[in-house]
């Protein structure tokens, strides 16, 4: 089994600053972390490797500093990591991101065929969840989103059983490998990293590729140029009026809430 996990470096804070000129994130304003969902994606790969054997590669597109999250992935249990980094990738929306990543995956699979690709459900900065399914389409493999359990991998039939979250429940589906999964956080808990992983991670240097290291790349599909969506304007939503403030001490305030509740008695049934 060769599992590739796509991992993204994201800013970690609620006080991310926005560059008012370009309306883009000022990434220097916030510490960068491994996208939390992607940590669960790596952990999923680790569990699969424990059960079915194999190797785990991680792949990231981002600035040179993104080596940090590749090291973090090695700490969780990845065997190796690839970073694609190039000015030409900058400003990519989800369509251009999935294009670039699929080209890197093409090259990785030439070195060692890929059986399974795992992504996070979404990245907490852009928050779209579109890159995973996009990659699957470009590679023409089945996408399975919102995965909460990988229940059965059959290496002989090359089929895998997966629980997928849907509205009001889940579905159990079976699909063929290679396929692409996007995982929910509830799929697992991130285990504490064993010491050997920590040591390996500290010394690890990822494989770094630029656009010129990838084959058959149509440069017009990369970065800002290859992105159909743009941020038009940013605005603060119109401030709502706000309602009635309840005065008095805590006792009075509580009383007033009880009155409001009593006015809506139909919501309770009092015997």
């Amino acid at each position: 089994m060769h599992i590739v996990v796509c991992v993204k470096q994201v800013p970690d804070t609620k006080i991310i600053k926005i560059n008012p000129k370009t309306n883009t994130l000022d990434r220097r304003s916030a510490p960068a972390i491994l996208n939390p969902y992607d940590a669960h994606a790596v952990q999923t790969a680790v569990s699969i490797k424990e059960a079915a054997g194999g190797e785990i590669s991680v792949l990231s597109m981002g600035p040179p500093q993104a080596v940090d999250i590749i090291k973090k992935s090695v700490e969780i249990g990845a065997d190796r990591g690839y970073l694609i980094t190039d000015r030409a990738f900058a400003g990519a929306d989800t369509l251009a991101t999935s294009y670039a990543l699929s080209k890197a995956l093409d090259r990785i699979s030439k070195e060692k065929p890929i059986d399974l690709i795992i992504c996070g459900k979404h990245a907490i900065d852009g928050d779209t969840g579109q890159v995973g399914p996009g990659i699957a389409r470009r590679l023409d493999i089945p996408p399975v989103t919102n995965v909460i359990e990988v229940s059965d991998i059959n290496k002989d039939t090359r089929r895998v059983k997966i629980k997928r979250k849907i509205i009001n429940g889940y579905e159990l589906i079976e699909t063929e490998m290679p396929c692409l999964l996007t995982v929910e956080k509830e799929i697992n808990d991130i285990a504490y990293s064993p010491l050997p992983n920590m040591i390996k991670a500290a010394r690890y240097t990822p494989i770094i590729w630029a656009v010129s290291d990838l084959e058959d790349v149509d440069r017009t599909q990369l970065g800002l140029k290859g992105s159909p969506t743009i941020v038009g304007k940013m605005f603060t939503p119109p401030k709502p009026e706000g309602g009635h403030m309840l005065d008095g001490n805590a006792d009075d305030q509580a009383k007033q809430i009880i009155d409001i509740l009593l006015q809506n008695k139909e919501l309770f049934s009092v015997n």
Partner: protein
Amino acid sequence: MSNGKSQEGRGPLMLDNRGVWVYVEQNEGVIEGVSLELLGAGRKLADKLEVPLAGILLGDNVRELAEEIIFYGADEVYVVESPVLKQYRTESYMKGVILLAEKYKPEIFLYGATPNGKDVASAVATDLSTGLTADTTMLDVEVEKRLLEASRPAFGGNIMATILCKKHRPQMATVRPKVMKALERDTARTGRVIEESLEIREEDMRTKVLEIVKDVTKKSLADAHIIVCGGKGMGDERNFGLIHELAGLLGAGVGGTRDVVEAGWLSHDHQIGQTGETVTPKIYFAIGISGAIQHLVGMKNSEIIIAINKDPNAPIFGVSTYGIVGDALEVLPILIKQFKEAFHEKGGEVTHA
């Protein structure tokens, strides 16, 4: 590509597309609420652009739903039926949607931001090589340029971003459930139904749905009449117990902000907001919650919002019906006590209606 000004907004890039489309999600023959809401929102866009509004319906034996889609605002319904479409699968549904989009070329195409809606939209956008804006909460069009303005909360600040897709068609967006309003069902409305057939065989499908399990034990937050939602202001997990206690008394659902979920005080399925549930209960308690935009988009359409926060300038008061500036750790125990007394006096237990 030419950069001549006269070329702006025209050219080889399918900008002649016309019409507003709504992907109508049905599960076991029942139309999802968000699809009806989108027909309401899409109606406004279509009227502004003076084009028809169409519903896109895929499934097995679903044609009879076409009428409902018209009652809720569509002028046209495109129907693709096949036994292979009995259950949702990306592979088959995507093929059906792409078939229609390539043949009839809409300019705007909206999907509910449900697991399946997001899934199909992401696949379709990749194949049509067009832009897709995720989880929008506001929609408008700039009529002259026929541009969809899809807005969503962004970047963790209290800020909205409008995403545009200028040169590719259709302009696509997924839209959060419960933020748009469905029209009244109008049985006098009439429309046109267009059927298309999809060449697809079960043998060629790579994915099989083995089983669908409805989670009946977990009462969905979305169905609760009252929700008590706590934020980071509760201080710690033990204090957060007061939220559970009040909710228990009221027969209410328990919710939390993302910070609360990340702190591990609640599981993710209780998170309310942009990356959690969107809810519209009759009464929503927001306790120790600052009111970040990502939280507000998930609850601001609740009927009565009661906010408790010790900071008088907290943005949550901007959306609240009733506000209390105070310490939740002081007010809640009193409220709980008074509530018990009030209902005890009436000699009875409170059960949820």
